[in-house]
């Protein structure tokens, strides 16, 4: 026998050899009497001695199941035995009784090992928040929400590891001094931003109306509007804003029409010149506080085109120090005769911009442009010498009527210290503030004694002579980097017992919202009602209805289907020639297409979840959830606008996730020949089975074909066969390769390939998409493949519903599942079956399971 998981088990065996026997005396007696003889008889011939087959040694008595690596190795042994893959065909098979003895012994020991490590079967170890969760928590607690300006605070924290299995695996979320340092850095920065320790300068206001600007030349060739706009009444008139509007076109009402920026500056430098945009250069001021923009805007959208995107950026328009940074991108859909105000709030302290550039130029530049990208390809007619290029497309126009800029200091949001506002005694005031913030950040009621050390520090700082706000800085920072904020704290007993209400509420809200529980959920937890299954189920319903559940859909689906690859892998969509040869425009069009492709499966999942449809709808339905860009990609007509909505699916796109271009692209990773990659993807992500670890010395198919010309001439099926003809490869690849062909008639961009034209002597034949599942059931096409996964008559571990239940459960518990969870999974699957596999019911049953409610 050759073993595919050589590396892993090899490692384990080293442990086996070095670990002394830890089993208790009576267990060891059972092992010696019944189990060891079987291992010796059936396994030790190959898996024994100094050089066992595949590095797996089964003839030794010392086994410590408390070690995770040992357990996972034995789980593999269990899987091989029960699937009949071991002992090999040529050897005598185990009798059913013997097999049962061996299998149940492994199950029992694994179970006990888990109990030893986790402190109980099915228990979950306390984990820290992921960086995204922690950043969201900070935003929630400190009220860091700015209209239309995303902060992406998590990008300032170290990247979290992601397990190969699509899980938010708590076991991998280690915490190092780097994390603590980065957290303190970030929190100090945000606290400083929200806790003003000195009065802001009086806010200034500029009202910029194109009707009051003069016509002028921009860059010597374009007509536009230019002028110096003083601040409105009552402010320092000697500090005017310099305004340049690089467009000569006006609406009847006097607003400015902006063409898509890609048309006017050809994207050689996206923010290169003033043409095609509004440039507002404010006289320099200390970049602290929040800068407010109120932009009155609308759109002119020609038929068949999308809505313009209003891009607002900081821009230093100084020769040789040009630097731009996008702050907001807003899709504008309201027509030009129904103008609307769009608000952009720019938190100056929290935006990473090299303000030194502004300081040097003495101006803070804000640029507003129409960043529309055409959805359909636009191929220019051949150029004629001496004639301007004929542009036959009408472009969506962004209409900006006027802009009001208000400087920092005008914020009307309640201050962070609101909780202490009405308290006169300073000591009590601070206690109230800290108690308020701590109960939000620690996501539970906080007793006054608990914040006492924090208030003591405040008083000490006051005594040192700091201002009231300044003295709050340290205690507040400490509250936010406290372990109670950074961890999902669960105080567990030695034996599994129900979690406290608050702990359960936290588990639940981080599962479904990726953030802290709200007032209502916490109230239910504090009053003890949350342990009532009906209340709990009702909360799940409520939380899934809440827009916060988008976080769950996005995280779960993106990780399950590895959709981040679509945006991060260098997949070439070949749009260069279809974007009038300009590579920058092609790149940007691709970015937007990739973004939408990666979102489609998420929106689809949300749709099924919202309507509580069957989980099987995820792999087969007669509708699509698309926007204009994806509809164009799929060749569906009549979809306008960037919003996702359901439309009837064309014949070839009725496989749910499995016929989505984004999913095929994620599986193919930009490779033209992706059969094996796709097989791995389908096995791991859709069939829910780990594909095994490949040896390190095998070249990919394409490289093999380049090295060996003969191979290059073979058909893809032949090549795949050759690739895996070696015995050791076969064990995994006999499962992987036949799966990959299910997508044989898709290219790596998820486009359906046409039937190849007939060749001389050969009739035209459709592409061969036949293959088989690892359990031997054959399919002739993707349709049949999907049917097999959806076949509820024949119980199979590859049934899609069961795979999804496993994935959801692992995600809910933030840990990989193992054998000891099988009983729970069985129950969940049965309950799902009873409920017609409706998605919300599945989620509810997971939340109600003991593994979730108990710690």
């Amino acid at each position, binding site marked *: 026998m050759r073993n595919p998981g050589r590396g892993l088990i090899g490692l384990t065996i080293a442990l086996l050899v070095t670990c002394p026997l830890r089993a208790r005396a009576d267990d060891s007696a059972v092992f010696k009497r019944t189990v060891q003889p079987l291992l010796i008889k059936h396994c030790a011939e190959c898996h024994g001695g100094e050089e066992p087959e595949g590095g797996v040694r089964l003839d030794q008595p010392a086994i410590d199941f408390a070690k995770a690596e040992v357990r996972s190795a034995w789980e593999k042994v269990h899987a091989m035995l029960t699937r009949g893959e071991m002992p090999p065909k040529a050897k005598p098979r185990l009798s059913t009784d013997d097999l049962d003895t061996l299998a149940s012994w492994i199950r029992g020991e694994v179970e006990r090992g888990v109990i030893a*490590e*986790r*402190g109980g079967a099915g*228990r979950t*170890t*306390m*984990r*820290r928040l992921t960086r995204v969760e922690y950043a969201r928590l900070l935003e929630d607690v400190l009220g860091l929400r700015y209209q239309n300006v995303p902060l992406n605070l998590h990008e300032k924290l170290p990247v979290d590891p992601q397990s190969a299995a699509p899980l938010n695996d708590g076991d991998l979320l*280690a*915490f*190092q*001094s*780097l*994390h*603590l*340092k980065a957290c*303190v850095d970030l929190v*100090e920065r945000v606290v400083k931003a929200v806790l003003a320790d000195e009065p802001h300068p009086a806010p200034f206001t500029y009202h910029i109306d194109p009707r009051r600007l003069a016509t002028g030349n921009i860059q010597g060739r374009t007509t536009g509007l230019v002028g110096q706009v003083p601040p409105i009444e009552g402010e320092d008139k000697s500090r005017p804003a310099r305004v340049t509007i690089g467009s000569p076109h006006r609406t009847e009402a006097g607003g400015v029409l902006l063409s898509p920026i890609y048309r006017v500056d050809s994207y050689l*430098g*996206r*923010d*290169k010149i003033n043409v095609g945009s509004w440039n507002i250069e404010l006289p320099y001021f200390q970049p602290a506080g929040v800068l407010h923009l109120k932009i009155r805007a609308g759109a002119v959208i020609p038929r068949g085109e999308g809505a313009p995107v209003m891009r607002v950026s900081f821009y*230093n328009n100084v*020769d*040789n*120090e*040009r*630097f*731009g940074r996008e702050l907001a991108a807003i899709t504008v859909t309201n027509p030009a005769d129904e103008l609307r105000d769009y608000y952009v709030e720019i938190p100056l302290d929290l935006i990473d911009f*090299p303000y*030194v*550039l502004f300081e*040097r130029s003495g101006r803070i530049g804000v640029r507003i442009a129409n960043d529309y990208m055409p959805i359909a390809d636009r191929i220019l007619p051949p150029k004629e010498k001496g004639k301007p290029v004929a542009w036959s497309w009408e472009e969506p126009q962004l209409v900006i009527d006027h802009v009001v800029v208000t400087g920092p200091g005008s914020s009307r949001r309640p201050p962070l210290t609101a909780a202490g506002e009405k308290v006169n005694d300073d000591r009590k005031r601070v206690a109230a503030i800290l108690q308020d913030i701590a109960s939000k950040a620690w996501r539970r009621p906080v007793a006054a004694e608990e914040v006492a*050390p*924090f208030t003591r*520090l405040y008083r000490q700082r006051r005594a040192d002579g700091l201002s009231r706000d300044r003295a709050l*800085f*340290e*205690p507040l*920072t*400490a509250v936010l*980097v*406290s*372990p*109670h904020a*950074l*961890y999902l*704290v*669960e*105080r*567990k*007993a*030695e034996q599994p017992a129900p979690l406290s209400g608050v702990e359960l509420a936290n588990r639940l809200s981080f599962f479904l919202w990726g953030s802290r529980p709200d007032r209502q959920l916490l109230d239910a937890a504090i009053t003890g009602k949350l342990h009532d299954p009906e209340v709990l189920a009702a909360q799940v319903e409520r939380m899934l209805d809440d827009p916060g559940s988008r976080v769950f859909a996005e995280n779960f689906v993106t990780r399950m289907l590895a959709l981040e690859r679509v945006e991060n892998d260098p997949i070439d969509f070949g749009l260069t020639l279809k974007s009038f040869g300009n590579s920058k425009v092609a790149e940007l069009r691709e970015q937007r297409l990739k973004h939408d492709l990666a979102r489609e499966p998420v929106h689809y999942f949300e749709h099924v979840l919202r309507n509580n449809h069957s989980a099987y709808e995820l792999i087969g339905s007669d509708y699509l959830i698309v926007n204009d860009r994806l509809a164009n990609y799929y060749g569906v007509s009549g979809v306008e606008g960037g919003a996702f909505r359901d439309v009837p699916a064309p014949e070839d796109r009725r496989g749910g996730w499995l016929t989505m271009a984004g999913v095929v692209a994620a599986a193919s990773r930009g490779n033209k020949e992706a059969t094996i990659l796709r097989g791995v993807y389908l096995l791991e992500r859709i069939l829910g089975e780990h594909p095994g670890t490949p040896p390190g010395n095998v070249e990919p198919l394409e490289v093999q074909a380049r090295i060996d010309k003969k191979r290059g001439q073979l058909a893809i099926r032949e090549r795949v066969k050759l690739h895996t003809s070696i015995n050791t490869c076969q064990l995994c690849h006999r499962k992987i390769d036949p799966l990959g062909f299910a997508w044989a008639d898709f290219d790596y961009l998820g486009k359906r390939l046409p039937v190849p034209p007939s060749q001389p002597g050969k009739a035209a034949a459709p592409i061969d998409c036949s293959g088989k599942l690892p359990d031997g059931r054959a399919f002739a096409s993707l349709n049949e493949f999907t049917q097999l996964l959806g076949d509820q008559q024949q119980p199979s571990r590859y049934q899609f519903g069961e795979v999804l239940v496993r994935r959801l459960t692992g995600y809910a518990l933030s840990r990989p599942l193992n054998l000891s969870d099988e009983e729970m999974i069985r129950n969940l699957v049965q309950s799902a079956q009873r409920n017609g596999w409706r998605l919300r019911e599945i989620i509810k049953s997971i939340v109600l399971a003991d593994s979730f409610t108990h710690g």
Partner: protein
Amino acid sequence: MLTRRTFLKAAGVCLPVPWLETVAAASEKNAGSPPGRAVFFMVPSGVNMWRWHPKEFGPNYQLSSTLQALAPLRKELTIFSGLEHAKGAGGGHYEVGVWLTGNEKYKSKDGPVEPNTISIDQHIAGAIGKRTRIPSLVLSAPGGSVTTSFDAKGAPVNAENNLRRLFGELFGSPDVMQRLQRRASILDLVGEQARGLSRQLGSNDRRRFDDYLQSVRDVEARLQADRGYFSSQLLPIAADELTLDVDPQQQRQDYFKTMLELVALALRNDQTRIVSILACGSGHEFFGQWPEFGKGTHHHASHATNFDTEEQKPQPYAFLERVDNWFIAHLARFLQRLEETPDGDGSLLASTMVLYGGGMSWTHNPSNLPMLLAGGSRLGLEHGSHLRFNPHKDFKGQVDKSVKPDQTTVCDVLRTMSERLGVPAEGFGDSRRIVGELLA
């Protein structure tokens, strides 16, 4: 009461100066060989090509008029002719982003609008930076994103240009001490809380949670070490001898003098071993006018030269020459300072490699770059020569066809420096070889 903090405080004061974080570094110190250092000092925007390179090659060259100030250090330096990046990288205004990366695809002159590749100083700092308190110093007179240093993701490393702040980071200032104090009290609070929490956790969760306790201890120890470090006597001179509140544009002379003095002190105290300095941006109006040197700007002067003779273009060449002399004088003083500073049983210069130069020659051409390498004799470098590599227009405007083309690039020199510091850099940028001509 002797708390852990007071203990750490005490320990902090006892910490040896210079700071040594790892045992590896400590043992290296004990072995008696001083650690290697590298300084990359870029002055962009071109030079007067008629007066920069010496006219003879090999060891018996005469120093050119521009380089006269370096005469006392002649044995400690190598001058390059014909050095350039492969494929003409860095042409025109891109020199700043290319000088230490060799990234031929980098075509951004308007600030770093697109990602670059890693620069050699960050490459080295990534490997050995942890051995010192500060992994690498990134300085530039314009500051911010105008820098020669790019991180592993190709983003510009934020460059410091405020000398007062730099001084604080190096030797402690009220601001910095306050920040440490602040952090210490924050960590005190959460550390106390974490220990309390740990006692309430199940055995298994507690094991996981030890991570947090350990990080609090680590960060705390680091803070205390910094405080101890700052409160020990570091400065061989009084702080008020340094002019720290100077504007890089208005008080150029004082600014560069103090900046280089701080760099020398940081190297002497082994606070950092890797430094990159950028004098200004390329084609950059940062220095605006240099009225003392003539009309126009540095950038425009180098644009105007266009392979013409000094007779044809007297004004721009004279301007460039004065700028060149000005910076070379600063370089000479800096090298002299390193030479006079003892380090182990040699001088600081002997263990510090200083790469000086720019990324433009004639009229913004990226060929025959004005570059020289000084110091590092104890790191195995052999100096004293004027080396020439690729065929290039010499001072007469002639191309020497006898030199093989495309043989040695700037990246080869960068790689050689990196490997002298024990950091492999095979294939860095466009590098294909180690410059054996530099080695003893």
